[in-house]
């Protein structure tokens, strides 16, 4: 009877353990981390977790071969995705995937139902010739796309597609579920200002005034800008040259070298940016995909092309700052895409590590998630693009041919709520939320900073000093310290005055007594001498005792 009871308890315990371990396995297969004030990586809570991984099967892309379906294209059409380079979530909430390898655009609803597969693009104004890499002239087959690389969709569902190998931007609207009518095409600008031979456009973006911005990797003067009518306007927001030792050396050489020598020097040219995004206020965000770029790695530009992050950002380091060499391969951050959510959180995708770095509008590091083990759920092989919709984050993988959906965890939603209040200056309201954040991750940097500011605003200067110390935030500590010092002085003013008066009186009393010869002239020296003598005697007597004891034995 007793044994039976013990057995049942044991079995129950084992079962419970099993259940617990399975729940533990349900979390992401990697350790999430975050940076502290010194950019040391510390383990942290996961702010996002994988909800869903979407492949062509989930979408039902087999229907492109089914003649009875409205999405029928041909019997040989590839049913899988192939080397997807970009995707875009339109303002209406529809996902447009650039299926680069299959030269088509796939349109999905946010529940991943297939809405359209655009393969035909009739209505091209004129056939035109372009020059390819080898210098051959080829006539563009204008009714189809050829290696489309990027897409943008405006609020009227007008698509702008960067048709890379056809060297054009296509502006089109849906005609049938498998074709879209071209409204306008943007070709290589025929002007002396445009110096490049080709127009291999990879990314496209349209602002509220219908200006079209195009990124060509061969052009480093910024984005190529077209007006709505299709005419070339100019370049927009070029990066600056990153100042390295080589650039400085070349600059010095140019002053003294002859013209032939100057011609042989490498030119200091800025790096073109890899991708961009536009937010609802019309600011354009860009990322530069160069290993460990520090100048203009991430920019937020106003319509004049001026980077306003220079003035407003609290932090200008993005991605993993430290390159890691592991098994002979060096991993350095390459920021490949940027997506700005409706509440102005900046999400940056790192191609190397497959990680998503999330920042707030002032570029404070918030959350890091994702990893580069393609075999596992939530891991990436060729993460090419990132988009946001609501609280979810979508990452497109060009080699795995899937889309990974990240949903926010409780921790992530607390962080978001707190940082929103914090950036509005509502420090006291943010305080309670920061408490929840710090309960889950006690070293969360922005949490410590937010708590510091909140406590300072609540006149709890001692607490503010404590948290400023934890966050290693010297300036904020100084503010709290000054306020605390002033408060202490004000509260104990009488005490300090009395103390000072007492000291002055003591000084005069001692002076008078010294004059009268009641106490020795050199009071401190005599006092110290007496103490030293006493100590010496005491030590000596102890030594004597030990010696005697030793002899006694």
């Amino acid at each position, binding site marked *: 009877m007793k044994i039976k009871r013990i057995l049942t308890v044991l079995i129950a315990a084992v079962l419970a353990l099993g259940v617990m371990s399975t729940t533990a396995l349900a979390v992401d297969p990697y350790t999430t981390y975050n940076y502290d*004030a*010194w950019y040391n990586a510390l383990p942290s809570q996961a702010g996002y977790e994988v909800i869903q991984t979407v492949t062509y099967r989930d979408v039902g892309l087999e229907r492109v071969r089914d003649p009875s379906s409205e999405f029928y294209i041909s019997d040989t059409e590839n049913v899988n995705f192939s080397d997807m380079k970009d995707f875009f979530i339109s303002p209406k909430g529809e996902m447009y995937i650039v299926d680069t390898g299959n030269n088509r655009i796939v349109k999905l609803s946010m529940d991943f139902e297939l809405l359209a597969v655009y393969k035909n693009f009739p209505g091209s104004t004129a056939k035109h010739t372009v020059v390819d890499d080898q210098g051959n002239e080829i006539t563009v087959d204008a009714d189809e796309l050829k290696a489309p690389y990027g897409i943008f969709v405006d609020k009227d569902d007008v698509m702008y597609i960067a048709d890379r190998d056809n060297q054009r931007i296509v502006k089109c609207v849906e005609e049938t579920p498998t074709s879209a009518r071209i409204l306008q095409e943007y070709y290589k600008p025929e002007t002396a200002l445009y110096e490049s031979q080709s127009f291999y456009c990879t990314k496209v973006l349209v602002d509220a005034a219908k200006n079209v911005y195009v990124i060509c990797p061969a052009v480093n003067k910024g984005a190529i800008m077209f007006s709505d009518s299709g005419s070339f306007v100019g370049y927009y927001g070029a990066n600056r040259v990153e100042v390295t030792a080589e650039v400085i050396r070349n600059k010095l050489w140019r002053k003294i070298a002859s013209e032939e020598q100057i011609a042989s020097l490498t030119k200091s040219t800025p790096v073109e940016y890899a991708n961009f995004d536009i937010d609802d206020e019309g600011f354009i965000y860009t990322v530069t995909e160069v290993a460990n770029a520090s100048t203009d790695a991430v920019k937020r530009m106003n319509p004049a092309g001026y980077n306003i992050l220079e003035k407003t950002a609290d932090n200008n380091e993005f991605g993993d700052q430290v390159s890691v060499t592991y098994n002979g391969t060096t991993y350095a951050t390459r920021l490949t895409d940027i997506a700005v959510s409706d509440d102005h959180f900046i999400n940056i995708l790192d191609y190397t590590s497959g990680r998503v770095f999330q920042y707030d509008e002032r570029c404070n590091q918030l959350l890091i998630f994702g990893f580069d083990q393609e075999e596992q759920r939530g891991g990436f092989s060729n993460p090419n693009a990132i988009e946001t919709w609501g609280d979810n984050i979508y990452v497109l993988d060009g080699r795995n041919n899937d889309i990974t959906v990240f949903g926010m965890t409780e921790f992530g939603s607390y962080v978001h709520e707190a940082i929103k209040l914090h950036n509005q200056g509502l420090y006291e309201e943010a305080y309670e939320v920061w408490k929840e954040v710090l309960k889950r991750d006690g070293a969360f940097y922005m949490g410590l900073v937010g708590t510091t500011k909140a406590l300072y605003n609540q006149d709890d200067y001692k607490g503010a*000093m404590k948290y*400023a*110390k934890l966050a*290693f935030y*010297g*300036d904020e*500590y*100084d503010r709290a*310290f*000054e306020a605390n*010092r002033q408060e202490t002085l004000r509260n104990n003013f009488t005490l300090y005055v009395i103390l000072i008066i007492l000291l002055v009186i003591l000084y005069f009393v001692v002076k008078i007594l010294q004059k009268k010869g009641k106490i020795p002239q050199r009071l401190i020296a005599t006092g110290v001498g007496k103490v030293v003598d006493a100590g010496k005697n005491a030590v000596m007597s102890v030594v004597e005792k030990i010696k005697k004891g030793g002899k006694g034995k």
Partner: protein
Amino acid sequence: MIYDMKPWAWVKHVVFHPTEGFEDMRWKKAGSMKIAIFIVFLLFCSQVFSTRYGGFAYNVRGYSDVFNIMPILVQSVAYYATWVVANWSLCTLFDGEGNMRRVAIYSAYALVPFIVGNFLSTGISYFITLDESIWYNAIFQVGLWWSVVLMVFGMKACHQYSFTTTIVTMIFTVVGMLIILILLALIMSLFQQVYVFFATIYTEILYRVRS
């Protein structure tokens, strides 16, 4: 003025009489090596204090870094030792009268204001804000330049030089310090390699003997 003073009183006398103090001390053949060593120890302590402590806003880095004693040891004791050696080696060639013991003692005595300034400025940084950093800097700079002045007159008295010769020899002493430190670094790396060489031979022989 009575110049029959106890050893510690000489320190006070020298510090507060920059121009004649060292001459007086040389005349009376005063100055204690024990006190000099103690002052260098205090120099080390003051460096530790200023790198590890102080008001948080003044020394954020110091509150987070792992404590490494070697740079501090080099910045205090090693600099002092190379200064003494370099100065003595140079000034013997330039008809300086000081022996190494005297150079060591005079240099150490001249460091006292710097040590005090270092302690005081770090201590005061606990009570002031960043806006009031002028106090911090002022105290530190006063201590530093007081020490420099003392050092000049100390070396002048020590070697019985003219003022210009003193300045020139001091500049060359700094150059000599650099050379000594570079040589030391070289020798250390060399010995490291020699040690590795012998260690390899030892293990090699050990393997053969055992097998």
